[in-house]
């Protein structure tokens, strides 16, 4: 008898069909992985189980949890279930906690509500639960507010809230997507331990096949609101019976074809960074205390050759983005020098930087946030053209935009459209078109594919590799995702607390990491093949 049984579940929001005939069941103590790309209906399935759907949503079908018919259950019955027998953990830990309440209040609240315990008892249980998720009272008293905790710590609090009453089912909706790989591994470990301790069932929603393979006994793969395939994780992902499963698996391990770095030989130096340091002043505790500073980037030196592709990897907060901002001359170093094509950047005025700016462009993570929604693509892509010495006239400008759009696999006619008319992947292509229009020699890409679905991500990685080959543009790719680094870069630098701790050939460093930082990153990075091998070994071993 399953703990949760979903049969023929269909869901519409207004007129739009969201879910079609979903079947899914989870038995006690089982981990079920729910995989799919954005818009596939994963989260809506979870919210149907919690009955926390948007107003206009109508569910049809059978959803039975522990003998209770959820579709028909009245709100009061659902309030008794939520937080007691079913807990839920969400994707974004930074916003999942109420900023004006202490973590103690927020964990104890559910306990008091469901058990009727008095405040001291509820707080004692909250204390024990926070301790269990790795927030011992000594460092994290109940009186802490969410803003005093980091993202990983906040996610632990959310897990403590969800698991405080030892639920029979925990639903975790992309619980680690917003965290760096090392934190991700820690949170997944914690979830696995909680499952084992209490014979809790876990519905783990993720877009990451590797994460699901590591965690889930069985996996359900969804697409366009329908279940494509479901079954035991190891078998489903090794046999790949369903073509969509095969496509997903291929896309998530996709490596674009690239010329061997040895072919091009050690080229002429494009970018040379020497002894760069960046300090940020820390707020003084009082007017009379001495001014302290925080060293975000600490004595970093490296050089990048023309056409070379380099990755900069490290945990969040290690100084990757600060370094990138200084290279782009958006921020000035406290010490050291940055030379681009032999010219020093760090002491130039904005006007003197123009020629350099033209030759280095940037691609950001979020293809939604980096465009003005009221401008047409023509204007968006043409933006960097003001850096050219000779301003092109309108006809020439349109020509250049059309060229750039075709370069990235869009058509010239797309310049008449607005950004909202494109999908996420297409928008990332537009931002790449904007970056290549001035024919730059260097593109700095800050997590260029981490907001994209795996299949689109594979296409964008191909595009990066292709532009590197055709336009001989050099890359500095900032990422916490080692698969991305492997896919499109020749060399890698591992950064830790502002310092470059390891540097070398990308595959060599990831196959044989030498420093603790690199080892930790490699060990924590989800890897589909490795996870599958381990799962198969476990299955055959007993």
């Amino acid at each position, binding site marked *: 008898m399953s703990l949760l049984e979903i049969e023929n579940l269909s869901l519409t929001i207004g007129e739009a069909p969201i879910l079609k005939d979903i079947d899914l069941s989870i038995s006690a103590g089982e981990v079920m992985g729910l995989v799919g790309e954005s818009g596939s209906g994963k989260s809506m399935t979870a919210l149907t189980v919690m009955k926390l759907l948007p107003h206009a949503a109508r569910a049809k079908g059978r959803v039975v949890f522990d003998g209770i018919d959820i579709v028909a259950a009245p709100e009061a019955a659902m309030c008794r279930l939520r937080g007691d027998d079913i807990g839920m953990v*969400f994707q974004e830990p930074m916003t999942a*906690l*109420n900023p004006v309440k202490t973590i103690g209040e927020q964990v104890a609240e559910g306990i008091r*509500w469901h058990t009727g315990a008095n405040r001291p008892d509820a707080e004692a249980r909250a204390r024990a639960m926070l301790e269990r998720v790795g927030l011992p009272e000594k460092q994290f008293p109940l009186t802490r507010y969410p*803003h005093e905790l980091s993202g990983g710590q906040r996610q632990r609090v959310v897990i403590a*809230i969800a698991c405080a009453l030892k639920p029979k089912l925990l639903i975790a909706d992309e619980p680690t997507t917003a965290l760096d790989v090392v934190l991700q591994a820690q949170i997944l470990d914690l979830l696995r331990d909680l499952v084992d301790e209490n014979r809790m069932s876990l519905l783990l929603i993720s877009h990451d096949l590797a994460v699901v393979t590591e965690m889930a006994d069985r996996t359900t793969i969804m697409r366009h609101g329908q279940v494509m395939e479901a079954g035991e994780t190891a078998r489903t992902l090794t046999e790949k019976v369903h073509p969509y499963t095969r496509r997903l698996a291929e896309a998530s391990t996709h490596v674009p074809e690239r010329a061997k770095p040895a072919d091009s030989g050690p080229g002429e130096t494009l970018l040379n960074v020497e002894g760069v340091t960046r300090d940020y002043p820390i707020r003084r505790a009082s007017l009379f205390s001495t001014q302290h500073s925080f060293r975000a980037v600490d004595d970093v030196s490296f050089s990048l050759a023309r056409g070379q592709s380099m990755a900069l990897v490290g945990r969040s907060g290690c100084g990757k983005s600060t370094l990138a901002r200084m290279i782009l001359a958006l921020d000035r170093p406290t010490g050291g020098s940055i030379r681009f094509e032999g010219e020093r950047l760090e002491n130039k005025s904005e006007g003197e930087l123009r020629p350099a700016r033209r030759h280095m462009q940037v691609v950001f993570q979020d293809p939604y946030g980096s465009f003005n929604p009221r401008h047409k693509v023509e204007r968006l892509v043409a933006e960097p053209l003001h850096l050219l010495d000779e301003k092109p006239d309108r006809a020439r400008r349109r020509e250049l935009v059309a060229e750039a759009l075709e370069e990235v696999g869009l058509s010239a006619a797309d310049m008449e459209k607005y950004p909202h008319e494109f999908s996420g992947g297409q928008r990332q292509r537009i931002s790449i078109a904007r970056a290549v229009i001035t024919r730059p020699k260097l593109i700095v890409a800050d997590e260029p594919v981490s907001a994209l679905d795996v299949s689109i991500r594979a296409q964008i990685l191909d595009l990066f590799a292709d532009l590197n080959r055709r336009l001989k543009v050099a890359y500095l790719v900032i990422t916490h995702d080692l698969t991305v680094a492997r896919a499109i870069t020749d060399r890698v630098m591992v950064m830790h607390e502002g310092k470059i701790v390891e540097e070398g050939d990308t595959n060599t460093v990831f196959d044989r990491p030498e420093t603790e930082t690199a080892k930790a990153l490699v060990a924590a990075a989800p890897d589909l093949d490795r996870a599958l091998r381990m799962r198969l070994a476990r299955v055959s071993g007993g």
Partner: protein
Amino acid sequence: MTAYLAKRLAVGLATLFVASLVVFSVLEILPGDPARIMLGMNASPEALDALRSQMGLDRPVVLRYLDWLTGMATGDFGRSYTYSSPVVELVAERVAVSLPLAVMALTLSTAIAIPVGIFAAARRGRLSDTLAMGAAQVGVAIPNFWFAMLLVYVFAVGFRLLPAGGFPGWGEGWGGLWQGFKALLLPAVSLALPQAAILARVTRSAMLEVLGEDYIRTARAKGLPRRAVLWRHALRNALIPVLTILGLQFAFLLAGTIIIENVFYLPGLGRLIFQAISQRDLIVVEGVVMLLVASIIVVNLLVDICYAVADPRLRTGR
């Protein structure tokens, strides 16, 4: 928290100083000679000079500014040119009307608007929400003097329940207090109406914004019913923008009520400042303006303290 408050207080004092400079210099630059206004256009130059030196107007500007500043610091705001009585007394008389009026109007508007705003947000899109917001729309649109006349017509002329205008003073004992209260009731209601309408809309939209936040979903996932989520999690977060508007409204109510004061023949601050300006009674204008600046600074300080109470992120000074 103390650092936060100390900083706010320092900013407040600096503002007060800058305001005093601005007020003094603006009135210094403006045309119009108080001595001539007091003596009329036909006064002889000798008489004018005599009066000027008597009022100290012939002394250097810097000295007069310093005198004025030290005077205010010791509670001496000077003497009015037209009323020939100390500014402090004039102002105190008027504040006894304006301050209670402002407090009454604000209490009334808050008591109506915040529950209506919360209610409308909780029932978003339903008939009750549409009706409440429709009423708020009407409340914003109705000019308050017209609404005031309507109130007078119904409650003073029609039912003869409340006085149509004037202010008898606060009198002796509970009876006197009641008379004063009755005189201020209709003005307070007419001032509160548009304020309440704006406040209800702000409360509703602040609540709606907060209800869309992730932590509301977390609270619901804990098993809290909708109502508990509304009161325990949403309200305190929604209060910040509401507090901002409240602070602004109070500042307006203290001295921006000249039209309502005229409709009800109330001797309030608004009328005092209007008369003082038209008679070039500079010393009164300066005194009242400084008082208003000070009270707005105090209100802002109170609002800042409320912010810090409502939002722990502000306490650490970030």
